[in-house]
């Protein structure tokens, strides 16, 4: 039977298991939106800006381990998604963005709402497509989902001209897939794995440095088994938080620019560094030539181009993190290990000393709310169980430092691209994926204003997202750099914000405010008991800094401490 492109598209989405789409209609996607009225299996969430659709799809994908989907119109609808796509690309998040396009006959004619979105997003998608023939549609959508979720995941954009969507054909829905030029390596070379394990077993001061790859490959349990059986202390990147339980004695906290003293010292003194699903980003390594100077390095990554990109490694292993860790664990199971506790005692004692000497801390105040205290209380009052999203800047770093993540997929943050305005729409996506969970966006007063329009989306869709604004009346992280490196010349960082309580009420949500430390707990409790979206406006110390801090370009052991 002949079906229209619109019908085929939705049929394809159903076959991919899509239950939710974040989108915004427009002229060239009218047929798809019309078809949606006859598709009860898929729920469409109408955002208020297309950027939010991409971020929501991203948050949805991270929380659910499924592919997130955004649907927008051509031209501005498509360009508005670019920030969200670029963020998903940097963080390897599987989303599929469907953009409308002007009819094929008009492409290249500067038609109304025409833009070359495939050209624009080429460098920030894993792959993208322009579908020129309805007979290619089903195959293309299947490939798009396959590419998005396999290998090193990432965003895929499919551009759909209006006439293709309107045309009809008898669809052939592909059952299997084979792209001759795309075959990600999952299985790690056992000889490399054995070499790596020999190196690790001989190590006196090993450190596990883990990243988002642990989360993406669902390797947290395998990591736990490996780290605990060899008693190797663990640190992770921002993207890897939750990959190892934040309350475990082997956990050292995040490393890098705002990492813990312990993690940065441990990496600086390690003799073997095991990098698993991390990519030696500049925010992690500091001065590259002095990063882990005493360590032999093992690097496990599914993307060969991540290996030896920034740091030349001793034992590269290409493949799925989980496969590598499983192989390690299987090999270990066949061995009779010497008394690991005894072997490791000295190194772990050093680690403990570092932890005790300079733990994450801040100066308490009886009169002003400290932002770190707010995050600590959020952690305490949610028993560490909430899904946390963050904006970007100080709020993001305090969330990373003071919320002790227990599980993978509990933190969604724009790590690579660092998008202010990510957290709130992402929280919306998480709440759609996890309707009964507590979802909190830890925000700043600057970044929340970047996508505040989505308040009405969460109200309209009964998504009880909680927003905790650490309101310091500054663009805090930039202000911090101005304080430390530009002699406190606060150029363009002080800013006004609306009355967030009234704003919440105007949107039909609940607004709460705390101005004194003793109000923090009651406000959080009330928010958590409110079955509606809530904005919590915490008036915090304006000039608080995120510490420790490794100044840009400095080696990691040269930290400014609290």
């Amino acid at each position, binding site marked *: 039977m002949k079906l229209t492109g619109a019908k085929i598209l939705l049929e394809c989405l159903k076959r991919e298991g899509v239950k939710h789409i974040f989108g915004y209609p427009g002229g060239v996607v009218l047929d798809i939106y019309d078809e949606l009225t006859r598709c009860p299996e898929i729920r469409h969430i109408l955002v208020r800006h297309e950027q939010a659709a991409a971020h929501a799809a991203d948050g949805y994908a991270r929380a659910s381990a499924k592919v997130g989907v955004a649907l927008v119109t051509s031209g501005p609808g498509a360009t508005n998604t670019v920030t969200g796509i670029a963020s998903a690309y940097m963080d390897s998040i599987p989303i599929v963005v469907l953009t409308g396009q002007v009819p094929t006959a008009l492409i290249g004619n500067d038609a109304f709402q025409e833009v070359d979105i*495939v*050209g624009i997003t*080429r*460098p920030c998608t*894993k*792959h993208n497509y*322009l579908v020129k023939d309805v007979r290619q549609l089903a195959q293309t959508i299947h490939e798009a989902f396959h*590419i998005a979720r396999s290998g090193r995941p990432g965003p895929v954009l499919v551009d759909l001209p209006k006439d293709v969507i309107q045309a009809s054909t008898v669809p052939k829905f592909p059952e299997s897939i084979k*792209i*001759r*030029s*795309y075959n990600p390596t999952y299985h790690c070379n056992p000889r490399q794995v054995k070499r790596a394990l020999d190196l690790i077993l001989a190590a006196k001061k090993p450190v596990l440095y883990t990243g988002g790859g642990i989360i993406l490959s669902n390797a947290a349990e395998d990591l736990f088994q490996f780290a605990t059986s060899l008693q190797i202390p663990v640190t992770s990147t921002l993207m890897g938080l939750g990959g190892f339980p934040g309350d475990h004695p082997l956990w050292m906290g995040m490393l890098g620019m705002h990492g813990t003293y312990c993690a940065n010292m441990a990496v600086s003194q390690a003799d073997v560094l095991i990098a698993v699903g991390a990519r030696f980003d500049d925010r992690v390594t500091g001065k590259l030539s002095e990063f882990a100077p005493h360590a032999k390095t093992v690097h496990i990554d599914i*993307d*060969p*181009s991540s290996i*030896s*990109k920034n740091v*030349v490694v001793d034992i590269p292993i290409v493949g799925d993190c989980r496969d590598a860790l499983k192989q390690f664990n299987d090999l270990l199971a066949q061995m009779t290990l010497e008394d690991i506790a005894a072997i490791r005692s000295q190194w772990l004692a050093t680690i403990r000393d570092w932890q005790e000497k300079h733990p994450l801390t801040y100066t308490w105040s009886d009169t002003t709310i400290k932002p770190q205290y707010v995050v600590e209380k959020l952690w305490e009052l949610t028993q560490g169980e909430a899904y946390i999203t963050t904006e970007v800047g100080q709020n993001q770093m305090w969330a990373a430092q003071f919320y002790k993540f227990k599980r993978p997929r509990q933190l969604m943050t724009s790590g690579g691209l660092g998008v202010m305005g990510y957290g709130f729409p992402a929280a919306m996506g998480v709440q759609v994926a996890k309707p009964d969970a507590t979802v909190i966006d830890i925000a700043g007063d600057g970044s929340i204003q970047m996508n505040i329009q989505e308040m009405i989306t969460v109200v309209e869709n009964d998504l009880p997202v909680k927003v905790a604004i650490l309101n310091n009346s500054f663009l805090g992280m930039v202000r911090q750099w101005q304080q430390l490196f530009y002699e406190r010349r606060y150029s363009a960082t002080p800013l006004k914000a609306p009355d967030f309580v009234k704003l919440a009420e105007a949107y039909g949500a609940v607004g709460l405010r705390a101005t004194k430390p003793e109000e923090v707990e009651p406000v959080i409790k009330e928010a958590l008991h409110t079955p509606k979206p809530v904005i919590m406006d915490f008036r915090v110390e304006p000039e608080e800094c995120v510490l420790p801090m490794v100044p840009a370009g400095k080696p990691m052991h040269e930290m400014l401490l609290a």
Partner: protein
Amino acid sequence: MEPRHTISVWVDNIPGVLSRVTGLFSGRGFNIESLCVAETMDPEVSRITLVTTGDEQIIEQVIKQLRKLINVIKVVDLTTVEHVEREMALVKVKAEDRSRAEVLRIADIFRCRVVDVSPNSYTLEITGNHEKIKAVLDLLKVHGIHEVVRTGTLAIQRSKKD
């Protein structure tokens, strides 16, 4: 100068692929010295021969990043194997009176072909590797070159001799 590498890239023969390849080079700050593209015997596959420069780590990244593109089927760094390289140039060179014979002599020595003749110029077709073309152009420069057009480098792996 950093070493030159001649890299062969087999890609899907569909629109936009060349732009993915060149965009990768500009976006990541890699050099392209020359580039040739045409269909192979398989009409679904095109082959790009490109010349780039960089140290070992950069060339490793170039190759890995190329392989990461979904439409790239195969990448070979021909510099690491025995191979033959050829370029072609068309040169319109001034040839008047006395110099007409000399230009023809140079053409003859370098096995160039005369592809167009006018009363005061010859157009020569020069084929050879990068160095040969440079040598001929240097010799012809003395007589006055009106115009030069050049291809990029083409390269193919040598067959096994045993």
